[in-house]
């Protein structure tokens, strides 16, 4: 709490939630390194990225949606559908590049359709993306009800590939892709007209429209971004699991929303940073590592701790919003 008070004195208030998230990350990680001997190693930090690269990509997409004040419940299901499409097309003998383009294209298309329904028919994002979730999961099972393993050699090779950093720290290519997505999102959100419109729509849609901004393009666009990110996240997940399965990533939408909220993005829209969401994912990853290091704790504690963290950050958000108004 002292970190909080100190930083609020110097930093603009809009950075406060991100700083709070970073403080939580430092505290949880610090607790781990005090308690366990090998916790504070470079490889443990690297593994946070390796094991959660797909979650980072999904969280980036969700940040766009939540910034406009919307929500996307379909991300986990779309990711599962992507693993399924990738597995099915690769096993059918498609060249990997074509398969990847198909996956990304279908994710973006699904996002576009949901965005169009949300914007043009004025249906709540929650219910449309819920339908999208049902649809994507159902389509997975339409392809196959069983788990399909990926046997394509160059895909497997890429999945097994590793980059060695100084100090014998190994990273997978997925991490590089995830970080590239984060950089691209930073560019789009802060240096393009689309990004500024996204923030403006979240702040006040009617004001943004009166200012002559392309609000409809931004509102539909964020769901395309989210659909694309879900598909890409699904691809990274299929690299991680080397299989496609309709029950992959069940409940992942909740983890993603939790990461974004913990990362300081206001659910009301308009305030938040992609970097915050990345730190949010790292917090969730650290909680998971702590629980697996502890060994005796049931993995179900992860869910409970995530729930408690989510709650704490929502209440923090309420306090911030209340102070502003």
């Amino acid at each position, binding site marked *: 709490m002292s970190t909080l008070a100190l930083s609020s004195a110097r930093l603009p208030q809009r950075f406060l939630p991100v700083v709070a998230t970073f403080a939580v990350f430092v505290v949880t990680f610090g607790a781990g390194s005090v308690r366990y001997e090998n916790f504070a190693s470079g490889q443990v930090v690297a593994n946070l990225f390796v094991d959660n690269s797909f979650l980072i990509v999904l969280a980036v997409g969700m940040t766009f949606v939540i910034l406009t004040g919307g*929500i996307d419940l379909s991300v986990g299901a779309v990711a599962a559908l992507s693993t399924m499409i990738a597995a099915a097309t690769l096993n059918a003998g498609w060249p990997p590049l074509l398969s990847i383009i198909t996956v990304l294209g279908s994710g973006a298309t699904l996002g576009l359709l949901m965005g169009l*329904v949300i914007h*043009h*028919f*004025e*249906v*709540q994002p*929650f*219910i*449309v993306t*819920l*339908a*999208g*979730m*049902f*649809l994507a*999961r*159902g*389509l*997975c*099972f*339409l392809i196959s*009800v069983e788990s399909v393993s990926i046997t394509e050699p160059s895909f497997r090779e890429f999945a097994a590939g590793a980059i060695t950093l100084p100090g014998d720290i190994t990273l997978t290519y997925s991490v590089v892709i995830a970080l590239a997505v984060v950089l691209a999102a930073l560019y789009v959100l802060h240096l393009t007209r689309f990004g500024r419109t996204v923030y403006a729509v979240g702040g006040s849609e009617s004001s943004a429209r009166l200012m002559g901004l392309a609000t409809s393009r931004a509102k539909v666009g964020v769901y395309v971004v989210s659909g694309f990110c879900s598909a890409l996240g699904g691809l990274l997940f299929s690299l991680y699991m080397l299989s496609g399965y*309709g029950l992959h990533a069940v*409940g992942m939408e*909740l983890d993603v*929303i*939790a990461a974004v*909220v913990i990362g300081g993005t206001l*659910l*009301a829209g308009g305030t938040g940073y992609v970097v915050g969401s990345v730190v949010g994912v790292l917090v969730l990853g650290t909680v998971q590592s702590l629980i697996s290091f502890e060994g005796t704790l*049931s993995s*179900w*504690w*992860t*869910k*409970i701790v*995530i*729930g*408690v963290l*989510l*709650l704490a950050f*929502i*209440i923090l958000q*309420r306090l911030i919003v209340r102070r502003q108004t």
Partner: protein
Amino acid sequence: MTRGRLLWPLIALVALIVLNVAVEPSFVELRLQDGHLFGSMIDILRNGAPTLLIAVGMTLVIATRGIDLSVGAVAAIAGAIACTYISGGGDAVTAVLLALSVCILLGLWNGFLVSVLGIQPIIATLVLMTAGRGGAMLLTEGQIVTVKDPLYRQIGSGFLLLPIAILISLAVLAAVALITRRTALGMLIEAVGINPKAGELAGVRSRTIVWTVYVFAGLCAGVAGLMISSNVNAADANSAGLWIEMDAILAVVIGGTSLAGGRYSLAGTMLGALVIQTLTTTVYTIGVPTDVTLVFKAVVVIVVCLLQSPRTARMLRARRKTAVSTPRSQEVAAG
């Protein structure tokens, strides 16, 4: 106006039943055996009972412009508590009371977050949805707890001519209909859904009403959870009530209750729950893999939402205006 809203779900239900009869002519047959009614229709009613019960609670929550995503987790917790208690040597009545008290507490918790702290309902209940199932898993220690208690068994698979589960659901539905439609409560709930601040100014205790509907939703979820676990004589914290919140919301929406709050139809919810359960059964009958049901549900949600959307209403109104000059009151009703 209400009759018009019920027309579409009713047509959908009849169409589904006709489809089933076409594939399996014995579908509508009922037979009486040992004083119990049997048949596919009865199975639909029994399997749909938990969804119907949760949907009744959800209807009131949605009428106040809220949503409760935690009902599936609460159902899992109720089953876990009751079964753990019974398998530890406790009696069924205490187990049920214990489970339901915890569900009321969980409802109080959701209601507190929404009505006192003013957190968005989707997110407030998301917390319990995430953490609740974890809690249920801890209670059952990750195992499926099986019980053999003849009394507890009755809740889910007992018969009193009709399955007891469906009798409970219908009784709750009737009670809620009576209480909210014979007193001003229903109107107050709708007033909160339309505009909580205006309601407050008009002397409606918005906070108390919102809080109460979440407690009621929690209680309904608890009873549904007991039905589910009693039906299989086991508490499976991992899969009991999984996706049931989605089915319940779907039932409410199909029934014509707007997600924007302010207006609800309990009869519609009942029809909606029946449509969903019949749809699920139809998919089995046709021989499509179970999980593909999700595609059908998705199509239903999208179609219903598009039919209900403001834009469709505007288009219909525009067409009606040009075709026949309708009285003004009907125009307002269509919107």
